[in-house]
């Protein structure tokens, strides 16, 4: 296919003509009629002698074996070719051996693509034969031209259609996330792929400080994580592109500012594969992606703002809940921190981790419906009192039912008192029936409750609490969650958090 693209139109035309099945059939028909005709096809008569199909001429038993006669034959053919060039019509001739033949210029409009002829016709040529041959060749030429035009159109349109489809796919890929941490590296990788560049950086503008903050920089030649520095607006290629608010393109870079109403950042690609120069096409496709990226980034920023607002409200609510009394209290900061760390380690995606964060903050909100005297009762609860306590997960879930944002959080809240063996409440769920977030919260909540000082019971040491968790693994707690928990609490940062909550330094 690549070879055909590199050919000239005339070469392609000849290629198709020679390989044409219709021409082969015509040759077979004429061959049957004239017994042993010799075919020849030439592209041009500029060269003297023209390049004939030597193999065909060699078949001629008159001129083939004898060089001198062959020269006379060639001159004879050249004469008729020149004549047909002038008249632009089929010309008949008789060769030195008194065998007849004819030559037809391959014409379309004013253009002559070459000449086709046959000689060594040992039967008498009927008057109608040349006319039929002319008609046949004209139809064949038209068909080949149509085929070539379609092929040219296909070759022109196909790469554009592929590029358009790529741009459409990129749009789908970048508009499918609202997480900036996921979005920006994705944009960088896609830019590198479509421009076949080795490096890409996405920087966002810090308007107050007038600097570009490097958010993502990827270089496929480097396996290490890159830590580029901030860049002042006006400095370096990206800084200049942002200051000028226009695309800058050089041999080995293109820098496209991300412009909404104002500039919000810049995408810069470097070093095209194989040291080639970036092209206008690269620039146009990068500009298209940049336009889509701006929308995706703005949406993600807006979503992040709303999310922060929602989390702040939830934190405020959680603070109010913490004031209910000491019996409800487990250290909130440590609880949320350990639960989120476990969620991440156990493969939850960022959205699921955020849901887990909300659930951790609100899991005991249903205790608002439990009287203070029951919550703070130091002695054993009566059956009725315990029943009220057991209702708090369902009450909490019910509270947040109308809040659409908290929809994924509700099952985690509802089932955070279920036990792994099915002995918990409210629905006696077992094993994997219990949401993973709930299983995580059950372990962390029990651990922190045991190590947090309480007036009515002896506080356990971290080691004692760990042993208690291990003892209940497989019954109250999910063994996989317990195993992960035991790893997490060995992390220095988590150890420090626990020690801080317990009011003393870590060992």
């Amino acid at each position, binding site marked *: 296919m690549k070879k055909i693209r590199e050919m000239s139109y005339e070469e392609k035309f000849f290629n198709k003509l020679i390989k044409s099945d219709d021409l082969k059939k015509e040759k077979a028909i004429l061959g049957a009629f004239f017994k042993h005709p010799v075919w020849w096809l030439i592209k041009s008569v500029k060269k003297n002698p023209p390049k004939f199909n030597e193999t065909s001429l060699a078949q001629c038993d008159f001129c083939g074996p004898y060089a001198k006669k062959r020269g006379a034959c060639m001159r004879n053919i050249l004469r008729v070719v020149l004549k047909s060039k002038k008249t632009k019509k089929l010309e008949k001739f008789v060769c030195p051996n008194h065998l007849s033949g004819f030559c037809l210029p391959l014409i379309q409009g004013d253009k002559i693509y070459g000449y086709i002829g046959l000689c060594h016709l040992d039967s008498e040529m009927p008057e109608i034969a040349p006319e039929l041959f002319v008609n046949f060749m004209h139809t064949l030429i038209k068909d080949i031209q149509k085929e070539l035009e379609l092929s040219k159109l296909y070759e022109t349109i196909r790469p554009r259609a592929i590029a358009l489809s790529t741009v459409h796919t990129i749009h789908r890929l970048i508009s499918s996330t609202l997480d900036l941490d996921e979005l920006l590296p994705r944009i960088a990788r896609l830019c590198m792929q479509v421009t*076949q560049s080795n490096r890409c950086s996405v920087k966002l503008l810090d308007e107050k400080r007038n600097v570009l903050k490097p958010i993502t920089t990827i270089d496929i030649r480097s396996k290490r994580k890159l830590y580029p520095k901030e860049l002042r607006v006006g400095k370096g290629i990206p800084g200049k592109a942002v200051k000028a608010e226009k695309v800058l393109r050089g041999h080995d870079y293109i820098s496209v500012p991300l412009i909404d109403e104002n500039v919000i950042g810049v995408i810069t690609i470097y070093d095209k*594969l194989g040291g080639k120069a970036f092209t206008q096409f690269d620039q146009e496709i990068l500009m298209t992606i940049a336009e889509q990226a701006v929308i995706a980034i703005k949406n993600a920023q807006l979503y992040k703002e709303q999310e922060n607002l929602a989390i702040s409200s939830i934190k405020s609510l959680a603070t109010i809940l913490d004031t209910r009394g000491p019996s409800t209290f487990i250290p909130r900061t440590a609880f949320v921190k350990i639960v989120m760390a476990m969620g991440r380690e156990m493969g939850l995606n960022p959205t699921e981790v955020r849901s887990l964060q909300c659930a951790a903050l609100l899991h005991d909100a249903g205790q608002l419906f439990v009287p203070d005297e029951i919550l703070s009762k130091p002695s054993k609860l009566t059956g009725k009192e315990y029943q009220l306590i057991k209702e708090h997960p369902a009450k909490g879930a019910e509270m947040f039912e109308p809040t659409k944002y908290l929809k994924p959080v509700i099952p985690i809240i509802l089932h955070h008192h279920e036990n792994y063996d099915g002995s918990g409440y409210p629905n006696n769920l077992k094993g994997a029936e219990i949401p993973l977030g709930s299983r995580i919260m059950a372990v962390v909540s029990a651990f922190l409750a045991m190590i947090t000082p309480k007036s009515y019971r002896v506080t356990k040491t971290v080691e004692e609490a760990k042993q208690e968790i291990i003892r209940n693994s497989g019954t109250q707690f999910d063994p996989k969650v317990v195993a992960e928990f035991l790893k997490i609490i060995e992390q220095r940062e988590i150890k420090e958090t626990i020690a801080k909550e317990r009011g003393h330094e870590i060992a």
Partner: protein
Amino acid sequence: MKLHKLIKIPIYFKIIAFFHENPASIDTPRGVAAWTGENRQDVKKALLKLAELKVLTAHKVSSTTAYSFTRNSKLIAQIDSAIKKERQEGERS
């Protein structure tokens, strides 16, 4: 199955050749099926296999998975020679 065996299967050859000729392309199974003229479900399976072999990179999002050609220069050189060999064999036969 390894690359040199997979490339002998027409659908795999078409997909590999498509991305080899259009290394900047990123497309979904639907798109690749259109460019290669093959059945979408068969293309989907072949794309998964080629991503496993790292011939293609999968870009997975919730609604679809898009695929692009590898950037590994050694692998590209291997693919290049495998395609040439396959084409030569095709011409001979």
